[in-house]
């Protein structure tokens, strides 16, 4: 792809997104209704001289504090000026002021944010510090200083309000630019010699503008609020009609003429509310929403026949699932990812589930634990754990099995420990909560299992936080946590995949030892036939949510029935051979250069 191609493709994508975003905004009731109201308010402001029934500063002493009537539709204020006319002209003031504020903050905030995100370095650090500092200054105090000095000059004040809104734009432009800067197409553009200026104008701006527009809707509302607040404090030219000043007057006469407070407050409240709603709708439309799974059963397509089979009596198995189906809610509707699988594990048996990513093997495991993500839903003909039927068991009852009957070893060691608690706490808490152990007993057990999984200094490990230990140690900690409750079934989801090659063998060896020592059944998920050969008695091959083949490990290796199984085995061997070759090449290279 040349840069031009990339650019055209990206332009088109952006254009499509923009038009569809705007169209979706107009179709959404939270979009077009507030937009229509807001446009009406803007038009009232623009055409104020045509719409207002009289001069906003014309004093008619007979109309002072007059109630609404035919001559003064909303009545007169304390000096006899027409409230409706002042309200209409006040709209103009409000919008003009907000415009000054917005222009100031966008002109300062967006370019500096983009530059800070794009170039980084000293400019980024200084600008970020200034932005943070600006955010920690109570703006109203500075505004009052400026008001005193500028003799209440409206434009200067509104521009100063804008300065205090700069951090919002700065932060959002900076973070958005940082995100885009890491994208491949920016690198491609740079490598092909496009200048920084062109990259920023052609690519970065496109990523920055949607959040900037959302920010603008919110900022406009807040700016109008601050403007009215200043006017309410009595700052500003009394001859310029403004909502804030009208609110101040109405507030002073609140007890006798409450309507005088109502009109400007309603106008301000409505304007700010429609802006806020527009901003929120835009934010919602831009966001990628996670679909929610429907609790009712989807109209099932003609169900494919279940695959796989059980080999043992249900009452004598450690685990048995029959016709397990897992569906996930996706943006385009519900998708079934496991199409009815049946399998079982005998006590003390080691069974591997092999398949590539997307084969449904992890989803099967999570269903066994009853810990599918919130978008997923499992249904099964039958589930037996430890020889007991738990098909109809409540969520609570299924939860009771965890930590007692079933232990779980996850794939990625670092992300599976809570970063805020010490390792010791994470081991001790379940023992106390689910096994009702005393603190001392739980600590002793935690210490013992840590020692058992090969950690030589268990006291230090227990005091450590997850980020203070290595990946291999973290995985041992997780194994310790899984076996601490002495489960009869251990479920391991790719327990070695995320580890260094040297550590993989050790962890696998440890699992084998523990399995034998505790007499546990072990269900191990992997994509690697090497792991299967090392540790498993029996293997189940999954593909696309179905079980395609299963059997004793020796038999399956000797004579795989399915071509898919043969491919998987070959891929595992290739991988090993390939790596060995690479190692040899690297060694030779070192010799040559040495």
């Amino acid at each position: 792809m040349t840069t031009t191609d990339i650019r055209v493709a990206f332009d088109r994508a952006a254009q499509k997104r923009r038009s569809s975003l705007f169209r979706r905004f107009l179709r959404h009731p939270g979009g077009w209704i507030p937009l229509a109201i807001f446009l009406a308010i803007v038009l009232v402001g623009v055409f104020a001289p045509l719409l207002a029934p009289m001069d906003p500063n014309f004093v008619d002493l007979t109309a002072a504090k007059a109630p609404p009537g035919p001559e003064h539709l909303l009545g007169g204020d304390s000096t006899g000026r027409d409230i409706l006319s002042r309200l209409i002209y006040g709209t103009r003031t409000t919008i003009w002021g907000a415009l000054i504020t917005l222009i100031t903050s966008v002109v300062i905030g967006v370019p500096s944010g983009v530059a800070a995100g794009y170039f980084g370095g000293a400019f980024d650090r200084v600008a970020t510090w200034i932005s943070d500092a600006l955010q920690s200054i109570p703006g109203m105090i500075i505004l009052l200083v400026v008001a005193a000095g500028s003799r209440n000059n409206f434009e200067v004040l509104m521009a100063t309000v804008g300065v205090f809104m700069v951090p919002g734009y700065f932060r959002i432009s900076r973070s958005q630019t940082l995100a885009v800067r890491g994208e491949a197409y920016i690198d491609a553009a740079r490598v092909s010699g496009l200048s920084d200026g062109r990259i920023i104008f052609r690519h970065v701006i496109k990523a920055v503008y949607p959040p900037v527009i959302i920010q603008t809707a919110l900022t406009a509302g807040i700016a109008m609020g601050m403007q009215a607040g200043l006017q309410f404090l009595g700052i500003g030219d009394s001859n310029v009609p403004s909502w804030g000043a009208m609110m101040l007057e109405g507030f002073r006469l609140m007890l006798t003429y409450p309507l005088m407070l109502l009109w400007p407050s309603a106008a301000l409240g409505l304007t700010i509310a429609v802006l806020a709603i527009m901003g929120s709708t835009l934010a919602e439309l831009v966001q990628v929403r996670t679909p929610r799974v429907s609790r009712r059963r989807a109209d099932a397509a003609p169900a494919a026949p279940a695959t796989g089979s059980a080999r043992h009596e249900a009452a004598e198995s450690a685990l048995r699932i029959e016709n397990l189906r897992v569906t996930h809610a996706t943006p385009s509707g519900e998708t079934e990812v496991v199409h009815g699988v049946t399998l079982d594990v005998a006590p003390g048996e080691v069974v591997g589930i092999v398949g590539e990513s997307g084969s449904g093997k992890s989803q099967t495991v999570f269903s066994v634990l009853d810990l599918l993500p919130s978008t997923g839903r499992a249904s099964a003909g039958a589930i037996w754990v430890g020889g007991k039927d738990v098909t109809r068991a409540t969520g609570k009852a299924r939860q009771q099995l965890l930590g007692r009957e079933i232990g779980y070893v996850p794939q990625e060691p670092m992300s599976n420990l809570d970063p805020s608690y010490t390792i010791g706490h994470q081991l001790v808490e379940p023992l106390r909560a689910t096994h009702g152990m005393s603190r001392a007993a739980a600590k002793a057990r935690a210490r013992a299992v840590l020692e058992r999984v090969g950690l030589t200094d268990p006291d230090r490990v227990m005091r450590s936080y997850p980020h203070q230990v290595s990946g291999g140690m973290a995985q041992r900690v997780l194994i310790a946590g899984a076996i601490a409750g002495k489960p009869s079934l251990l479920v391991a989801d790719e327990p070695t995949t995320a580890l260094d090659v040297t550590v993989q063998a050790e962890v696998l060896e440890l699992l084998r030892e523990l399995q034998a020592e505790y007499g546990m059944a072990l269900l191990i998920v992997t994509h690697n036939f090497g792991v299967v050969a090392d540790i498993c008695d029996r293997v189940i091959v999954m593909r696309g949510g179905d079980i395609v083949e299963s059997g004793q490990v020796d038999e399956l290796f000797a004579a795989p029935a399915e071509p898919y199984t043969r491919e998987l085995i070959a891929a595992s061997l290739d991988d090993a051979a390939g790596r060995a070759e690479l190692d040899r090449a690297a060694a030779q290279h070192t010799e040559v250069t040495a």
Partner: protein
Amino acid sequence: MLLFTTKRVLSGILLLVAVSIGTFFLAHLAISDPTAALLGTTASPAQQAALAEKIGLDRPLIQQFWDWLSHAVLLDFGMSWRNFQPVGAQLAIKVPVTLSVVTFATLITALIGIGFGMITGLRPGTWFDRIIKGLSVVLFALPGFWVSLVLVIWFAVQLKWFPAVGYVPPTQSVDGWLRSITLPAISLALGGIVAVSEQLRNAVIAQTRQDWVRTLRSRGLSATRVNLHILRNASPAALTVIALMFVGLLSGAIVVEQIFSLPGLGQLTNQSSQNGDIPMLLGITVISIVFVVVINLLLDLVLGWINPKVRVA
């Protein structure tokens, strides 16, 4: 941890100095002729010159600043130009009022905001979640003084539950003090409540998707216990907003105090700005920034306690 705290304190002092310099020169630039503002338009040039000499305005600006700064580091903020009383003494009278309202508002914000954020974050999509979301959109944008007006009309004028105006010091009556700051605090807090709630909700949802949540549940921990883990990890987001809100509340208090006739920093700021009383304005700025720095320091310490990684960095 010590290094981390020292760094934070130094950064706070740097901010304090930077803002002091900024405010000093901004004020002198903006209020080009303070004597006119102080004496009114009827004063003769001779009177103006006499005042200028008395308050040191006839000296070069840099010298005036140095004079101010060298006293300020010893916590002496000079004399007010309006009534020639020490700035510090007047601040000492006004600060407790504003601090009562702002602290009370922060407490309300934190308690209710965290509660709402927890409930909506742990169970997104429920009717309660939708109501809070709908409310938050509008409440966040509406200025505190607008809300104050509504509350005053409703609770003070119509229902007469709370006094509409005035301040009762806690030394006089604790009950009266609480009643006098309740409405101002609520009007200030409403916007913050929804901001904190929204932040915490998003953070809770993000934490719920973490791998370790599944692992904790796989150990047999009850939903309540797992939720506590989620909350602890989600709380930095909420705390950061609370600290930011505090700055916004100080700003908002200036207008809200006007509505409830509270004799706090807000009134003092407004008066001083109209009178061109620069030493008073500087004193107010410094004391506000001190609050902000202290709050941020507390926040950092709490964040360090929650997230052990911060402590090491």
